[in-house]
Structures are given as structure tokens and as C-alpha cells.
């Protein structure tokens, strides 16, 4: 936010209000994140099903990226501040997903972006699947099991059900830390990501979770 908020504003109606406060959301950039879930990444705990996912090994570009959908290099926050759009690759990424007893999938992830200097993003949020995350994922994806060595001559185990892709929505709030003044707006502003998640089985076993977010800055409109 900029210095304009230091000016005193007309007093709001304190107590129980009958009208809404000013609000604004501005599109700033987008972020694609790719995560891999292996057989050892799921555990049942007292909080529900805990899913630990990390970025796939390989080139940085395969883990995700930050970009602007219209390739703009400058954006504007709701309070009018012109700012640089972060464009770069994801270097590190992990997410700790808890699917609770009511089927809500809570996200808690960390992203490192490679810009002129490293940018660290911490996010929390919710992924929603129609019918509940637990049921939707259980219906679409067979449970993962560690590979079992079958003795020669033993009857083959029945083939597991064919996995199907699962789609859902994801909503996150983000906190950023970055030393560069150029991206200071990301540290000072509350950012929200509106996104989609696509869960796909991979041939080698396990699943790929592809998240794609449009990131907005929220604030009072000036």
C-alpha cells in the first residue's frame, strides 16, 4: 500500500454497519505449480489424510513458473501503485495438504521463485472438489501402494481400477518475502490466488498435481 492511506478518511459507521466497506481486487500475475505425489507421500493422521507433495526432479521450468497472462511487465495494485510483474521459474516447491474428515483439502505450501533475486512465497488455502476432496479423489484415483515383489508362479493380483483425472478448484492466500525493492509490493500486499487443480496419474506410479493460479492483490480502492 502507498502513503495515501496515511491520510485520515471519513469516519466509518462503527458498531453494526448496514453497508459494506470499499473493496478491490487487481490481477497481478499467474503462477503454474507442478507437484508429484508418490506412494510414500500419503499418511493417515488424527487430522485426516495428510498428503506431502514436492516438485518433480528435473529442470526448474518443469516445476512451475510465474508469468502474466498478457505478458505485461507492469501491473497496478488496488491502491494505484504501479509495480513490476514477477516473471520467472519455480526453483523449489512443496505442499502439505490435509484432507480432513469433512472432505476439505487444506493447502500449506512454499514456493521459491527465481527472479533477479530469490523470492520466497508461503501460501495457505483450500482445494475443493465437487462432492468433497476425499470422495472425489477416492473415486477417481485408486489408492497408491508401494511396489510389491510377487514370487514367480504366484497368481497375479487383480488389476487395480483404471485411474481417471480429477479436477478441482483451489484458493490460496500468499505471503511473500523478497529483498529487492522492485518486488516490495509483493511483500506489502495481501495476495490471493484463484486457481484450478488437475490431478493426473503418471506412468511411473503416483500422481501429478498441477495447480494454476491467477494471483490478485486485494486492497481498498483509491
Amino acid at each position, binding site marked *: *500500500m502507498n502513503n495515501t*492511506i496515511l491520510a485520515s478518511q471519513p469516519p466509518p459507521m462503527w458498531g*453494526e454497519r448496514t453497508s459494506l*466497506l470499499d473493496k478491490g*481486487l487487481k490481477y497481478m500475475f499467474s503462477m503454474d505449480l507442478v507437484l508429484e505425489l508418490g506412494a510414500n507421500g500419503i499418511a493417515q493422521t488424527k487430522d485426516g489424510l495428510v498428503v506431502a507433495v514436492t516438485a518433480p526432479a528435473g529442470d526448474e521450468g518443469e516445476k512451475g513458473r510465474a508469468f502474466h497472462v498478457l505478458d505485461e511487465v507492469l501491473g497496478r495494485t488496488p491502491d494505484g501503485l504501479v509495480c513490476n510483474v514477477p516473471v520467472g521459474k519455480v526453483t523449489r516447491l512443496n505442499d502439505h495438504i490435509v484432507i480432513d474428515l469433512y472432505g476439505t483439502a487444506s493447502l500449506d505450501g512454499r514456493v521459491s521463485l527465481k527472479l533477479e533475486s530469490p523470492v520466497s512465497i508461503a501460501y495457505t488455502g*483450500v482445494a475443493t472438489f465437487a462432492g468433497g476432496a476425499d470422495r472425489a479423489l477416492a473415486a477417481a484415483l485408486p489408492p497408491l501402494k508401494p511396489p510389491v515383489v510377487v514370487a514367480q508362479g504366484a497368481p497375479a493380483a487383480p488389476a487395480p481400477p483404471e485411474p481417471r483425472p480429477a479436477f478441482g478448484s483451489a*484458493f490460496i492466500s500468499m*505471503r511473500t518475502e523478497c529483498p529487492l525493492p522492485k518486488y516490495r509490493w509483493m511483500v506489502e500486499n495481501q495476495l490471493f490466488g484463484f486457481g484450478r487443480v488437475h490431478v493426473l496419474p503418471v506412468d511411473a506410479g503416483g500422481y501429478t498435481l498441477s495447480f494454476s493460479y491467477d494471483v490478485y492483490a486485494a486492497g481498498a480502492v483509491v
Partner: protein
Amino acid sequence: MDREEIGFVPGGVQVTVFARQDLSRAYHVQRDRTVAGLGFEAIDGTITWGGDWVYWRQDDLEMSQVRASITTTDGAVIHMTYEVVASLGPGGYRRIVSEKEKMGKSDDPLNWPIVTSPRFETTHPKYRWIMGYQCISYGLVQIIKSEIRRLTYDVYAMT
């Protein structure tokens, strides 16, 4: 609001602010019984407990962690948690910690806009719907003599 000063800590100043019991309310501004667009039961109740763990950083940022409990008029208890990141403006940290130039006056309080990202938890089946949403809230904080006096928000569900 009641204030408890922790004081100077590495990197800034820590203050805890507590809501005055049963003086804070959760309500729908249009007094609707359901949430428009979602069809769920709207939340109406009293904030029975709430605290804001405020950390003013030397780089003119406020990082807060808020915990609050809402008791609805029909007896359900809903826990609310969120974090706040807010800019104090250039030199804001110095203004807060110094004795001079305090922010806001009794006759001209500073109304500071803030944005937060609350999540809610409850076991009550009527309000369980809210656990499935990440929310955005737009609020105003009233500051008098560099102290948070009261705050108000509108909470939106991200869909």
C-alpha cells in the same frame, strides 16, 4: 480493545491486543439469514474471545496473527484464524515506537484499511460449510495515539 505490550523483540516490536469480551459482533450487514450465492446459513453471533498478536517490523510492515472465537446466537462455536500483512507507510515503524507524532487523535482517528485471509473451523453441522472456504476480508482499523481501538471487516468467501 485491551492491549498488552510485549515490547522490543529482535526485528521489531511485539504487542498483543485482545477483543473486549462480548462487545464484538459477527453479523450480516443486510441482516440476511443466508449467504447470497451460496445458500448457506449466515453467521450471527458474538465474538466471545479474540486476540491479535501484532509484530511491527523495522521495515515498516505489520505482521499479525489473529485468533478469535465466535459464539452464534444458536450456540455454535466457530474459531477464526488469520494473518495480516500491512504496510505501515514510510517511517511508520518509527512513528509507532517513538513518543512523538503518534498516529491518530481522539477527535481525528486514523482509519487504516486492511486485508486479511481468514479461515474458520467448527464442528457444528449448520456452519460446517465455512470450513471449505478460503476467505478474504476487507477491513478498517481505528487507530488513536498509535493504539488499535477497534476494527471492522467484511468477510467474503473465495469461489
